[in-house]
């Protein structure tokens, strides 16, 4: 057994991507898990969050202003998508949101927007102010194969703190009467309407709040990489978040966090195991190391299908909830 594979997997599972995707999934969970909104364009909120920060700093604004701009842009985006679509049936929202995500990516990438966004090359080195705030002395922390330098540790610290704060926020929201109304909407919109609830306003709020949390995730990822490029924000990111939400259990508080940790652990572990196997020639000449990426996705697809078939409630969900028929 090569322990390096395991330590790499653990490193990813506790690292910045896992924290960022936990955050992103918390936002999606509020929309999909609690309110029942099929938002297939969640990546768009990550994009506007990241670009809101990058552009603001690039134009000479402060990092704090940039973060506020990123979140505000995502809230506004929620409003913009929600107003024309939320009165329609759920599947229309799915179609429109997936399109919005792609349109935003292409607009940001276009030469028309290049004066602001620098087109497909994106914007770099906009998070120096963030790293200047790092209170952790230089050095390597941790033992065994699991050591992080002060830079990685700082981003992780901030990232997981954000995950904690956001979870507390969602906890407060969802256990309140507000949360009960959005769950009622998930179960049956017309019933909620017949009881005097303004379904449209609640859905809009859910879309905007979830978008703001998604923007935070985008900002965290962008800060960690000191880089935003349009082609990072492909629809696949939304589907990562959906996988994580379903893995953890839709409509559960800790589902997105545990889902993200497990998702990234398995993702990295599979990568390591397959790379090792290919290099040792276990597949004969059948597979090359370059084939591992696509195979990993195929395995994830199978895993997701298995999950939907045998454990649709995810890790934290209650099985009896899933056995209840819709009406």
């Amino acid at each position, binding site marked *: 057994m090569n322990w390096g594979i395991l330590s790499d997997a653990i490193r990813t599972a506790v690292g910045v991507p896992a924290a960022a995707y936990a955050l992103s999934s918390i936002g999606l969970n509020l929309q999909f898990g609690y309110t029942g909104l099929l938002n297939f364009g969640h990546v768009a909120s990550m994009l506007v969050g990241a670009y809101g920060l990058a552009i603001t700093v690039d134009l000479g604004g402060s990092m704090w202003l940039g973060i506020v701009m990123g979140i505000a842009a995502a809230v506004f985006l929620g409003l913009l998508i929600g107003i024309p679509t939320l009165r329609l049936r759920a599947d229309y929202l799915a179609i429109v949101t997936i399109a919005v995500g792609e349109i935003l990516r292409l607009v940001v990438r276009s030469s028309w927007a290049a004066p602001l966004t620098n087109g497909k090359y994106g914007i770099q080195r906009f998070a120096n102010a963030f790293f200047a705030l790092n209170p952790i002395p230089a050095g390597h922390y941790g033992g065994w194969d699991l050591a992080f330098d002060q830079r990685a540790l700082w981003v992780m610290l901030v990232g997981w703190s954000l995950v904690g704060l956001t979870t507390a926020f969602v906890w407060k929201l969802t256990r309140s009467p507000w949360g009960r109304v959005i769950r009622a909407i*998930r179960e049956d919109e017309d019933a*909620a309407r017949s009881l005097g609830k303004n379904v449209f306003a609640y859905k809009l709020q859910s879309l905007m709040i979830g978008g703001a949390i998604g923007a935070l995730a985008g900002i965290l990822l962008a800060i960690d990489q000191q880089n935003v490029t349009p082609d990072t924000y492909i629809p696949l990111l939304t589907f990562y978040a959906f996988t994580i939400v379903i893995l953890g259990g839709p409509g559960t508080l800790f589902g997105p966090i545990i889902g993200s940790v497990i998702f990234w652990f398995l993702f990295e572990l599979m990568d390591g195991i397959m790379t090792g196997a290919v290099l040792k020639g276990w597949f004969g000449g059948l597979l090359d190391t370059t084939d591992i990426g696509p195979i990993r996705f195929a395995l994830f697809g199978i895993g997701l299908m298995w999950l939907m078939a045998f454990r649709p409630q995810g890790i934290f969900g209650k099985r009896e909830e899933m056995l209840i028929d819709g009406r």
Partner: protein
Amino acid sequence: MAAEISPLTGVAPKPGISKPDPIVVADDLRRFFGGLRAVDVDHFEIQRGTITSLIGPNGAGKTTLFNLLSGFDRPQQGHWHLNGGPLVGIPAFKVARKGMVRTFQLTKSLARLTVLENMLVAAKDQTGESFWGSLFGRWRHIEEVNTAKAMQSLGSFDLAHMANEYAGSLSGGQRKLLEMARALMVEPEIVMLDEPTAGINPALTESLLRHIMRLRDEGMTVVFIEHDMDVVQEISDWVVCMSQGQIIAEGPPGYVARNKAVIDAYLGEHHGVIEDE
């Protein structure tokens, strides 16, 4: 029984007749689905504080009329009032807040909420239901008051022992009861029940009807769609019969049961069989 004290005594049994104290008044209400006239009502009034049952063969437009009055559907034409206030163009949730609450023919229980949560979500004036109120508001006291009220209501509908079960685990009849109990949590002035007794066993139906009569005696207006003529005869103060979108007869239950237009409407379309579903 109710006829002696009924405010409808002396009102002529004529389609579209005016009533002494109407809570709902509708005029020129038209709803077409393509070429089909689903609702085509010239004038219609519902007397406050009475039980009015809406009967008629399948496809007569009863549920569509409910949908129009409660804001769940929009007519091509017409205007209607609740307590004198116009309801044209008012969205369904606001109609409910104004005091007109309806239930559905296909029961809409909120399956993955508990029975108690189903009740609590219907309660009015819970400040914790607004976004800021949920974060910073003091909604716990309201919640306690509502919970006590909900438990009492669940008790009278024989559902108290199910309070913490998922609504989706209830039987079809229990869901009907829950839906009615939930509608009453909104404290409506007028409640419109779409086939409240469908799928409920006879013993439970009896208690449900007593419940409806008690609501009337407390001053609530009840309108319900019903196919079971025994039920209609037993509790109605007034019966309205629709056929092909129009009101073809209305009057006290005894009158409507003998009305030729009513008998024709049922016999003509259903070959003498009065179905209860």
